[in-house]
């Protein structure tokens, strides 16, 4: 059976480069519109309800903007459920906290990958800076390639 992959791009679409996650997700939604086994969500933030969707996935891909990276820099990391619940809030979660909710609520721990794209400007704007727009194109291509790889080889390695 083909692995089911959930892609979540999140961030504010009104705060400049913070929209990198939603922008990448929107483009991936177009690319994968006819692909079975792939769902794409565009979210303002990660909320507990996404744990229900994540629990059904074999792999979750998070795409977000990061303030701790240089503008346009891309970081790809594997995400494990956090052990620390203290900073987690009800309204929004980080990927590790969402994976914790998924495990605790549904007993499922899908594999998870996070792409963080360094932002250059977070001022009120609905445009990405050029360097971040380029990085978004890179991440779109990278995720497409990974999805092909995961689905073709069934490499999802649930924890």
């Amino acid at each position, binding site marked *: 059976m083909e692995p089911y992959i959930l892609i979540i791009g999140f961030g504010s679409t009104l705060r400049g480069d913070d929209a990198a996650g939603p922008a990448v997700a929107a483009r991936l939604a177009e690319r994968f519109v006819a692909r079975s086994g792939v769902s794409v969500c565009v*979210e*303002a933030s990660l909320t*507990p*309800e996404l*744990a*229900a969707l994540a629990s059904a996935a074999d792999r979750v891909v998070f795409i977000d903007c990061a303030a701790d990276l240089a503008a346009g820099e891309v970081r790809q990391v594997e995400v494990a459920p956090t052990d620390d*619940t*203290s*900073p*987690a*809030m*009800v*309204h929004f979660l980080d990927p590790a906290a969402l994976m*914790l*909710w998924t495990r*605790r*609520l*549904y007993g499922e721990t899908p594999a998870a990958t996070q792409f963080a794209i360094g932002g250059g400007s977070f001022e009120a704007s609905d445009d990405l800076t050029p360097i971040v727009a380029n990085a978004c194109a890179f991440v779109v291509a990278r995720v497409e390639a990974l999805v092909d790889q995961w689905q073709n080889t069934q490499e999802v390695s649930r924890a």
Partner: protein
Amino acid sequence: MAQTITIAPVTRIEGHARITIDLDDAGQVADAHFHVTQFRGFEKFCEGRPFTEMPALTARTCGICPVSHLMASSKACDDLMAVTIPPTAVKLRRVMNLAQIMQSHALSFFHLSSPDMLLGWDSDPARRHVLGVAADHPQIALDGIRLRQIGQGIIEILGGKKVHPAWMVGGGVNAPLNSQAREQIAGLAPEALEIARRNLGWFKRSLDNYHDEAESFANFPSLFLGLVDGDGGLEHYDGQLRLTGPDGLVLEDGVEAHDYGFLLGEAVEDYSYMKFPYYKKRGYPDGMYRVGPLARLNLADYAGTSVADQELVAFRQLRSGAVLSSFHYHYARLIEVIFAAERIAELMDDPDILDPHVRAKARSNRNVGIGVAEAPRGTLIHHYEIDDDGRITRCNLIIATGHNNLAMNAGVKQVAERFVSENHLEEGALNRVEAVIRCFDPCLSCATHALGQMPMRIELRSVEGVVVDAVQRD
């Protein structure tokens, strides 16, 4: 010697609030103040904007209940345009508002408050959160997640987005419902009803366990304000304002949106940016009233759907006259979720719900527009004044948390009276102050339940500023 207890911060995100409790010379609680120190400025920076932008602008007031602001704002714009919007647009707006009430009440009850009720107000904060509930009561935690998902899902089906949908506009809505979406929504409503009934069941069976909280959580006589429909039934979208007393008697009825100013005054205090609305005839602060689910169930003659009406009868057995304890906001929320699920199902069966005529178009035809609706937390009023070019010259927003401001202050005082004695803060004060605020579900409550831990410090201080007692949780 007069002293002051300070609790700060009360919250972490919307936070910017603190509580002070003043003691008299005898060491007894003299007063309590709930300070909201955050300044938003929406009323001011909306000035000069075209009125057509107001729904989208004011929806940004909140990320939890943007739908409520969209609705009140769109109604105010309808008023400025002097249009009667198409009947199907009214029905669709109602569906989205009920879905908003469903998801917001689910957040308040399951995510924020059920950990206190199910794990204990004084249980370890490290596990007093919804994940702790998941460990001990997994079905309840899953129900909470699912119920909110259903509410948000219906909002997304209608508006294209779960948060800040731009679908509601002056004159109606910008897209009709299609048959596929109708089937989706119709399929979700029965599950929401089942979840709400199941959880109202355990809540009612547990009421004896919450006797102390029901007795002491903002349990006092007050007035209640909210909308009712033309027959006095439970109403969240339209209708007229009704004000009732603690004995359940109707004091004001049939007050149209445009006349809210005759009913309500707005006071300000130098210790808070949040306004203090009051009932004008009683004056300030005696004109304290409460809004929200508790108020709505107290003042409506009936709910109007079968299961909700049955539950309303049971709810009213709690007390002759109005139910006064703010603890029972929780009870009222569950009944309102039942109502929302039933009403959404009815509206999906409406023969006109797919009618493509969902928007009236016009330019501004009045210089004053007022929209009143019921948000999850209570009555929401948007009042705009525009110039002849349609630009906002004055904007007044009275939000639910503001209506409840006097009552929240009184509630904190009531809890403090129980947990402060002889210049000493008794065990449990922190948790109870949190919990009484949470009953009202102000936007602040979002942050006051950060997985069970609200950073809080209460200090007993002498008039010289010397700390004589303190408790703290980081």
